[in-house]
């Protein structure tokens, strides 16, 4: 059964910007991990979740994997445009201990 999830990415030097759309579940989370793996020299990932309103814990486990991969290269993950429900979810799951958040992609790029 397919679920609707799409992402687009842009690379600015060593910063990768990924914009997602749809359910961040196993499929969505895997796609984010694969996208990061395509860019081995990236040390900063900006994840714009403006069009993702629902995330489950499997999706979160993939995001933790992304954080670990970036930590390994002294990189960092910045979430932007978070829906309040998702922000609360990430907070409870402890993601902000290892990742940052910003209001927009522009402010995350600074």
């Amino acid at each position, binding site marked *: *059964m397919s*679920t*609707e999830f799409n992402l687009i990415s842009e690379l600015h030097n060593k910063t990768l910007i990924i914009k997602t759309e*749809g*359910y961040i*579940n*196993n499929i969505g989370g895997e796609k984010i991990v694969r996208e990061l793996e395509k860019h081995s020299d990236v040390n900063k990932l900006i994840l714009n979740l403006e069009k993702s*309103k*629902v*995330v*489950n*814990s*499997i999706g979160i*486990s993939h995001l*933790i994997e992304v954080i*670990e*991969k970036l930590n*390994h290269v002294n990189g960092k993950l910045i979430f932007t445009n978070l829906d309040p*429900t998702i922000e*609360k*979810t990430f907070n*409870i*799951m*402890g993601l902000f201990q290892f990742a940052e958040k910003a209001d927009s992609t522009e402010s995350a790029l600074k």
Partner: protein
Amino acid sequence: MGQNSLVEKLSLQAESFQEGFELLTKSNSFEELTKNFWHILRGNFITTNIHLFHKASKESEWTSIKTEGKPGDFDFSFLDKINLTPVKYFENEKYTAVVALPLSDSLYLGILFGSKLDGSGFNDFDKITLQILLQVFSSAHKSFINQKNEKKLVFELNEKILQLNNLIDTGIEISRFDKKNVLFDLAIERIVTLTNASSALIRVINIANATMDRQITFPDKLNPDDIINSRYKIEFNFDFNNKQYLFALSEKETRKGVTSFSDLDKLLLQAIARQVQASIENEYLLKQSLEKERIEKELALAAAIQQRIIPKELPRIDGYEIAAINIPSKEVGGDYYDCIDLGDNKFAIIIADVAGKGISAALLVNTLNAALYSYLEFNLPLTELADRLNKLIFKSSPPDKYITFFIAVLHSKTGELDIVNAGHNPILLLRKDGILDQIEAGGIGLGMLDLGIPYTGQSLVMNTGDKLFLYTDGIPEAMNIREEEYSDERMIGFLKNNSEKSPQDFIRLIVWDVRQHVGTAQQSDDITSLFVKRFE
């Protein structure tokens, strides 16, 4: 190599073993752990000819982890030759040393060592070093597994906190009235989050005609049949107000694929569905309460209209006594009476009853009252007045609404009565000598038809000692719990037996008698009565 020399050499290596352990424990994955170990082995044994494999259990096949060769290049039979000890050394063979190290989570690490760069085999120092390094790896792997389990536990604990938090938040949000338009969207999003479902469906079915009222899926473009026909599915439904609400979840996600839902997932699905049910029920009850409030306001308005029309006191007529009463039933009715001083010792005595109750009946009485006052100004013959009223009521009321109406113009000096009865119950004129005249002359009820059929009038004289009794059907048709009517006969009998009483007493007593008959049954219609007695 002598014993002392060996100890001395190993002592020098101790720091390197410690560093190796620290490097291994920093690994984030098993793959990284073994890759780092491979580098350590290469550094210690000065060879590139080292190949790493693993297998999930004793019976599994070996899988390559870190090697520069192809799978077909290796002879795994060497690994399978190992039984009791994890390491075996060979001379004059393809491999100089072979390791099959059991790890803490039933995994096996396999290592094939080829020849060293200088072509030599494993000496005593190498053998001890390898044993120590395997211990280091085994410890690092245990540490890695412990860390992994710890992370898993923290994740699971956070997940439970998240579920609880989500459940509370969802309950609050679903019960908020400003979220009613997104109730199902909110519920479906929360339930997939809570249960890790791949997809979900909410379907509302009208039970009476088996049609679908509404259907939403998550993700929104999904074919609902995919969920209904899914191998891994749980459902919950409830019925309310002739509708069935079905909640279905499909394919619980894990990192390794999809699986069936747990009992906890079923409970979570039920919890969310029950919250939606409570919200729908509350909304329905609120609407009902508002509707009840609206009806009550309408009835209060109708009652106010009716009370404004019903005269607070009747005019004084020389030589006559007059009394009247109007007791509305529980619902506001459409009964009406009046006695209007027309001047020149003339009085219009009126009683009317609108078919139906509520505000529409009250408004129709209001129309009748306003028109009546207007037409009486013109001193029209009563038959023409009735005809005009009929036309007006016919135009201003729906087909099922009409008014039974009686009017008598009393010339008080002479006792003459000009009468028209438009479909009302017969009015009773009880003569002094006990003879009863039933006055029916007139025509159809006002507003029933507009066919131009003229009304018929009647003239009578009310002499001293005569009594005129006007009433609505709320008196003869008043029913007790056995559905027995008070009846015309009992009413006429009461009139004959009590006609000598004052009009006030007569009215009071007939109401009492009707209530005696009705008993505990509810008053089903208005009770209206007017009693006129000529005493001079």
